[in-house]
């Protein structure tokens, strides 16, 4: 199933875009043709660099995803021709990466834009264009080696220039680097590059690149199942607080994965929940949404909870979570044989999702659920019947398993060894210290949820300006009114109308 394998990567791309897509409607109308769009973005970047306002650069980058899909070689060619002056060295170096740029075509083009030879644009524009070219090269399989070469060169250039205004673009470039290495070479080869860049970024307080790079590193480790190393990355770095939501969503997802492997399920559960909350709408980034939910369902089961039924009816998740739904049903029923057959049936999918080992751990939960159901329905049951009902292999083991369940507080009861049965005690009185503790935990959880949600809220940058303008207008009107009153040409009719 190729689409499953692609998912993490695709979801990433989608995760980036989703936010961009979300905010786009608020933007002023975007120039129609892609060429104009690139030119407009280059101008925005210029403006951002000259006014030291990263806002403009962010706006230029926001269209990256939608632009990426519209690109082709001619568009890039024309855009580069238009942006750079006639005999710029950067222009020819950029154009050399585009196979479509034949010599004669260049001749034709050079004559046209010469009417307005703009000054040499800032290096940020060059990196931006390189980013676009990388994505263009990635579109076809045979150009991947070329993309790799260009990426390596771009990274060198980016690091050599050491400009703070480059940071937002650099963060995007790192994502492209990962993608290129994954498609064209071995992802592990990019690790030294990321590690070095991560060091530099944290020294320079380059939050955006840092957030992006930490995620790159985590992904690179987790992709090769090096959870130990990934855990060390998490403990040795601090994820920048100012990071964008999509980066946060990914970060939480990776931590959730690491914690789940380490059996720290409640922590994993928290992180995955954050990831879901911060992730873009399901329809925009379905891959990420599905991947997080797959893990989320398993972690919830491992914690002894049963996931919400409605989750499996969600239009985006319904199909993807099909196999997981069957597992949930088996765990809920406490049927070991059902669990084993479901596991065997979907083994390939779980293996591809990297959830197989986690699901195998559910076996004991299945047994516990089974015992619990028996203890609720019988007041006395022989060990042999338990063994039969739960499909356990031997009666000796049934005794140990029941003993363990009693000790772990799964059931209330005792074993009468001489008679070979289990007596189930009445349910414990549910009022006591544990209750207050439980409440405390739940309240803490709600408060945490509230705080995290507040933090996850985003405000449009200029919203307060509008309010200011409104206030300004109101004052203006008031002034006018005062003036009118002073002039005394306001009669009763006006009054009725106004108030």
């Amino acid at each position, binding site marked *: 199933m190729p689409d499953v394998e692609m998912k993490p990567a695709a979801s990433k791309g989608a995760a980036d875009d989703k936010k961009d897509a979300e905010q786009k409607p608020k933007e002023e109308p975007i120039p129609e043709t892609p060429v104009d769009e690139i030119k407009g973005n280059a101008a925005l970047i210029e403006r951002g660099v000259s006014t030291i306002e990263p806002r403009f650069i962010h706006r230029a980058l926001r269209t990256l995803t939608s632009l990426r899909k519209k690109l082709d070689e001619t568009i890039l060619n024309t855009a580069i021709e238009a942006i750079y002056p006639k005999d710029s060295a950067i222009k020819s170096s950029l154009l050399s990466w585009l196979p479509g740029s034949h010599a004669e075509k260049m001749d034709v083009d050079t004559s046209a834009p010469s009417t307005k030879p703009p000054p040499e644009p800032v290096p940020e524009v060059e990196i931006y264009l390189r980013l676009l070219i990388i994505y263009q090269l990635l579109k076809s399989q045979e150009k991947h080696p070329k993309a790799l070469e260009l990426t390596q060169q771009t990274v060198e250039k980016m690091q050599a220039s050491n400009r703070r205004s480059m940071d937002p673009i650099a963060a995007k470039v790192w994502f492209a680097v990962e993608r290129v290495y994954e498609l064209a070479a071995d992802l592990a080869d990019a690790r030294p590059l990321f590690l070095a860049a991560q060091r530099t970024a944290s020294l320079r307080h380059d939050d955006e690149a840092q957030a992006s790079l930490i995620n790159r590193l985590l992904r690179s480790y987790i992709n090769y199942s090096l959870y130990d190393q990934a855990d060390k990355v998490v403990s040795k770095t601090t994820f920048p607080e100012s990071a964008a939501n999509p980066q946060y969503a990914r970060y939480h997802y990776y931590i959730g994965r690491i914690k789940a492997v380490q059996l720290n399920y409640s922590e994993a559960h928290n992180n995955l929940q954050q990831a879901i909350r911060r992730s873009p709408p399901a329809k925009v980034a379905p891959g990420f949404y599905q991947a997080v939910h797959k893990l989320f369902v398993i972690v919830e089961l491992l914690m002894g909870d049963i996931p919400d039924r409605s989750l499996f009816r969600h239009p985006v998740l319904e199909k993807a979570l099909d196999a997981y739904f069957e597992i949930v049903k088996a765990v809920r029923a406490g049927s070991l044989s059902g669990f084993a057959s479901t596991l065997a049936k979907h083994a390939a999918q779980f293996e591809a999702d990297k959830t197989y080992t986690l699901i195998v751990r559910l076996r004991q939960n299945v047994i516990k659920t089974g015992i619990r159901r028996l203890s609720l329905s019988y007041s006395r049951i022989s060990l042999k019947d338990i063994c039969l009902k739960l499909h356990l292999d031997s009666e000796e083991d049934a005794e*140990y398993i029941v003993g363990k369940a009693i000790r772990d507080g799964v059931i209330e009861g005792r074993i009468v060894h001489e008679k070979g049965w289990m007596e189930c005690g009445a349910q414990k009185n549910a009022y006591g210290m544990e209750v207050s503790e439980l409440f405390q935990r739940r309240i803490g959880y709600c408060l945490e949820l509230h705080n995290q949600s507040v933090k996850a809220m985003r405000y449009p940058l200029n919203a307060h300006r509008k309010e200011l303008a409104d206030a300004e207008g109101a004052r203006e009107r008031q002034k006018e009114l005062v003036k009118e009153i002073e002039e005394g040409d306001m009669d009763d009719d006006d009054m009725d109308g106004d108030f």
Partner: protein
Amino acid sequence: MATSLRSLYEELNRSFAGPKSDLKKCGTLLSQLKIGLIEAGLLIPQGNANPEDLIVARDILEVGAIWSIRSRDEASFDRYFSQLLTFYTDYASALPPSKREYPIRGLNLTRLLTQNRIADFHTTLESLPIPADAIGDNPYIAHPVNLERWLMEGSYHKVWNARTGAPAEEYKYFIESLIGTIRNEIASCEEAAYTTLPMKDAALLLFFDTPSELLTFAQKRGWQIDLTGQTITFARKDEEKKEFPTERLIQSSLLYARELEQIV
């Protein structure tokens, strides 16, 4: 590679091979070899070393790991294993696979299990270079994986039976300490699950062969033994002391007040 190193290596192989290996001699040879490896820059290889040298280095470390188990030195096994990981993961494509790799990985997993480092056990398991659904086919890995599963679900009888099914001689060393662990586990389960238990059955459940072993064990755990009736009575855990955690309640109330203040 220096010839002195190679001759030492051959000597190590000779004294290690065979059913009765000379542990003491191997130990001295190993420490000499390690110094030699450091001098040759092979203990923690970097860059492109000669594959043949790397194989020798890996061999030496593997022998070292197995030797540590035989001489019951877990800390030393841990060190050898960490050094071996470089060869197993970073040079996996450059070197032919070693036939001792999986036995040693399995030993490491078993060691983590006996030390009750379950989280590490799973992390290590996850990073094995074999697909998860093929674990059952590898006897060296399947053994610790099964042990873990049985321990977690409480099938102690299966763990007991697995003593004989160990895939390699070295696993038995860990199994012995594992039995100690499960005895304690079973004992704590019995304390919770039974009120009284005939001594005969208790011995059976705890895998003791003689009553005297059971008696010493029972004394250690503070069980009441009725020798005439041949039964063990487990002291019920007293009803938990009812103490009102005032300080904690005040603390949490203050916390709620502060949080609510922020929200409203």
